[in-house]
């Protein structure tokens, strides 16, 4: 087990190295650089732009800039400098990390709390009206573009006269210290991104859970449990436990998806996560911010997969790590 974990962790290092080259290449391929937007600005002369280009190091050849960037990450933990925000990229991302992680995790919890019981119900009542309704509901959730759903919710909230639209807090609570009223206000804002992002993955999760459960319920060991005279409740408990095991690896794959699924929604709903940040950095050619964000999301994917593998190995003794 330990050798497996060590090997998996070690693989991440060369992977991240190649990923960093890829991220750099993508941002280099973008036409123009951060200073291109100043070319049309009559208040800034061509000489000034040249000066800035030199100061930002943008006049150096690409490979030199790449090695400088990667060297600074390895030696100083410095992820580069954001041109637009005029601050270190590491600090900027760190600041936004809190809400991003909270919203991603809450979204996943929301999905799982709904999807698992729905899947179990569907599997225990296959081809019933309830099963079909849940399937159709799941498909609708899967098919509705999340930004469209967000717009619909916003229209709905406007129509019922609510002001809890966009952002995470009402204006009077921004900067206020934590209180019950502030927490309540937060909940009033928070449900929308959770529901909007969560609905998308709900259908897939539900279908997988339903499939797993159907497989398990039909397997010989469940028949054996019944033959032993165990009551239905105990049988069900065994079935659910075994059907849940493969879901762990899906949870690992789901986290990065939820993470990136919040990007568009956060832009629409104006939520201070990394999403709107990444978007504006892309538009501004804020190269180091884009690269670091992409690296970060790739790292999260790697780590989530690693944890999923380890958790699966611990939960399911049939899986051997050789």
């Amino acid at each position, binding site marked *: 087990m330990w050798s497996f974990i060590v090997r998996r962790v070690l693989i991440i290092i060369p992977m991240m190295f190649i990923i960093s080259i890829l991220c750099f290449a993508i941002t280099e391929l973008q036409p123009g650089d951060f200073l291109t937007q100043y070319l049309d600005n009559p208040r800034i002369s061509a000489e000034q732009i040249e000066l800035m280009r030199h100061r930002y190091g943008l006049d150096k050849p690409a490979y030199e800039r790449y090695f400088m960037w990667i060297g600074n990450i390895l030696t100083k933990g410095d992820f580069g400098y954001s041109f637009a925000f005029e601050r270190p990229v590491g600090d900027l991302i760190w600041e936004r990390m809190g809400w991003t992680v909270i919203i991603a995790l809450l979204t996943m919890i929301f999905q799982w709390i709904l999807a698992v019981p729905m899947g179990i119900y569907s599997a225990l009542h296959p081809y019933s009206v309830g099963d079909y309704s849940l399937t159709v509901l799941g*498909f*609708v959730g*899967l098919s509705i573009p999340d930004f*469209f759903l967000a717009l*619909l919710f916003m*229209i709905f909230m406007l129509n019922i006269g609510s002001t809890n639209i966009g952002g995470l807090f009402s204006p009077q609570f921004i900067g206020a210290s934590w209180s019950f009223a502030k927490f309540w206000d937060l909940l009033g804002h928070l449900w929308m991104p959770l529901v909007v992002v969560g609905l998308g993955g709900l259908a897939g999760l539900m279908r997988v859970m339903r499939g797993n459960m159907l497989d398990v319920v039909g397997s010989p060991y469940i028949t054996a449990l019944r033959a032993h005279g165990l009551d239905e409740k105990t049988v069900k408990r065994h079935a659910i436990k075994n059907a849940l095991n493969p879901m762990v690896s899906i949870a690992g794959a789901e986290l990065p998806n939820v993470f*990136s699924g919040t990007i568009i929604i956060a832009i*629409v709903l104006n939520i201070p996560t990394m999403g709107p940040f990444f*978007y504006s950095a892309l538009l501004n050619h804020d190269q180091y911010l884009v690269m670091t964000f992409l690296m970060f999301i790739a790292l999260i*994917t790697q780590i989530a997969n690693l944890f999923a593998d380890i958790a699966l190995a611990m939960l399911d003794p049939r899986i051997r790590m050789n």
Partner: protein
Amino acid sequence: MNSTGKRIMKSFFRHKLGMIGLVILILMYLMVLMADFISPYNYATTSSGYVNAPPTKIHFFDESGKFRGPFIYALKKSRDPVTYMLSFTEDKSRIVPVKFFVKGDEYSFWGIWKTNIHLFGVEEPSSSAMLLLFGADRFGRDLFSRTMAGSKVSMTVGLIGTFISVVIGAIIGALSGFYGGWIDILLQRFIELLRSFPRIPLWLAFATILPPNWPSTWVYMGIVAVLSLIGWMGIARVVRGMVLSLREKDFVLAAKISGVSGYKIVIKHLIPNTLSYLIVVTTLSIPGMILGESSISFLGLGIKEPMTSWGLLLKQAQSLSALQTTPWLVIPGIFIMLAVLSFNFVGDALRDAVDPYRTVDKL
């Protein structure tokens, strides 16, 4: 047709949701083909008198309750004396009948015939009355006509993108599985690498590579390229797995002994054997591509004016003030949802039909 084919067809046509999806898709693609004919106006024509005009109500009975066939009332404009906002009210004295096959803006049908006949509309010039089924946007353009024009982009991007990615995925996957060795290792590592990014940030990052000064037809091709560049990897992986088991089969050995070249074995013998999977995965990846295009365009990184797509149309509805004053701007979203839902239903039905054990996983 052999018995397996019959069984598949029968099972597919019995799937109720799949049939509903299929009918909707056929209607939607008819709409794409007839887009210019169905839309009463040119999608790019602006009418300053109808800025943010609400959807026109179609009436059948006039004020006195007399049946008059379908008609609309011409609009009366007034400005709010405080906010200067335009508001529209129906002018009950001016009845404008809605007619079929009316003459309107000239357009060229499929780029071949020049005509000015539209499926329906009003005969009055747009300065005196307009039939705005979905309302108008902030330039006074007819949203219904724009939605029709957008369907041409939104419904084809997914189709072409998926086709390209399936072709790339099938060939690379089959080559990788058939030859094995270092080609296989290299390709698989590369796929793993690209798959360690979630799709949305990768879409957005690749979309910003397209130069902003490109004309909109090039941007369209660029978006197709971006979508298919990211879409082929999952397919390649599964095809590789299938080819790995197929290449040990006797018919491949027979082909090898007969001296058929490796490339020909892949194209002629291995890929056709994965065809049922490829068909299913094609229908199931189209919705993802449609959503991808609309997301990219919604954020303003995709399709550009004067071309339009459903995602780009929704972009105008993004602000709170737009949602409050012109909520009809979100109507194109319903079309995205319908298209994606129908493809999902059809894909699901196909998957159930092709695979008796239902083991083909959704990507």
